[in-house]
């Protein structure tokens, strides 16, 4: 198998690219949903399904690439550069928490718990960036709403990711790639 490592790398790259494009499409879809009218600033965060799945099968670096492509493309397509900084801060906070949980305590948490923590971290990161830019901590009065939103969407994203991971596990090719990834470490 080792002699095919270059092909495997290419295969993994394509999978991550597919993940990224899916995440972008989900991001566009959710921008059309009237979700934000209930709690302004909250989003379902469907793209996180792909980030979580990527973290599950591949490395943190792969997931970071996915996040970079996803946030950049989404900002380009939706034209949301004025709030780009806040999305990036949210995405990075979410990534850091989910990566840490999966890397060091995969057995202690269910996938849903990882996703919920990621969702909450996303909103905390976003709000912290907003507090820094606006120079006020009073914006944290809004935190309970975003916390609750993060928990609800986190549960949904976690369940969706679990289904996706289970299905992908049935594909031999995928299991092989993930296995190679773990052996390579």
């Amino acid at each position, binding site marked *: 198998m080792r002699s095919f490592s270059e092909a495997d790398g290419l295969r993994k790259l394509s999978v991550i690219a597919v993940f990224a494009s899916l995440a972008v499409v989900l991001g566009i879809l959710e921008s059309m949903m009237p979700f934000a009218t209930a709690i302004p600033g909250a989003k379902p965060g469907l793209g996180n399904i792909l980030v979580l799945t990527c973290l599950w099968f591949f490395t943190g670096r792969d997931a970071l690439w996915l996040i970079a492509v996803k946030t950049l493309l989404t900002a380009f397509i939706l034209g*949301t550069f004025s709030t780009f900084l806040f999305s990036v801060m949210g995405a990075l906070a979410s990534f850091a928490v989910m990566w840490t949980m999966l890397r060091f305590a995969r057995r202690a948490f269910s996938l849903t*718990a990882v996703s919920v923590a990621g969702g909450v971290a996303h909103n905390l990161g976003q709000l912290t960036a907003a507090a820094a830019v*606006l120079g006020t901590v009073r*914006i*944290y009065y809004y935190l309970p709403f975003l*916390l609750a939103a993060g928990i609800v969407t986190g549960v949904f994203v976690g369940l969706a990711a679990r289904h996706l991971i289970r299905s992908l596990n049935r594909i031999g090719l995928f299991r092989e790639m993930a296995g190679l990834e773990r052996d390579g470490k």
Partner: protein
Amino acid sequence: MKRGDLVLMLILAAGLAIFAVPRFSDSGSAARTAIIEVDGRPYMTVGLDEDGREIEIRTERGYNRLRVSGGGIEMVEADCPDQLCIGFGHIHRLHETITCLPHRVFVYITGDAGGGAELDAVVF
């Protein structure tokens, strides 16, 4: 349900309680003024009894229009791309906020202007 899940639930419940309890416990107290900040600097303080008063904010980032009504304030117009600030609706309770991140506009409700202490009542 794993052990870590329980720990996470406890942390989140504690976090929600710490932030939500003071937020909702004093929601009934009188709200008198809204403070508007732009780019982290105080922009204007508005009495919430000035029914019908409109505040226009024009910066290099964009345009926002707020309107005072019924003891509260709301964002009625903004040329920001996401229009989230309008989604906050009519705010009238203590500590409620409106944020327009693209334009760096932040509005929050406080108690009596200059009073400082936000007390409901004092009983001797």
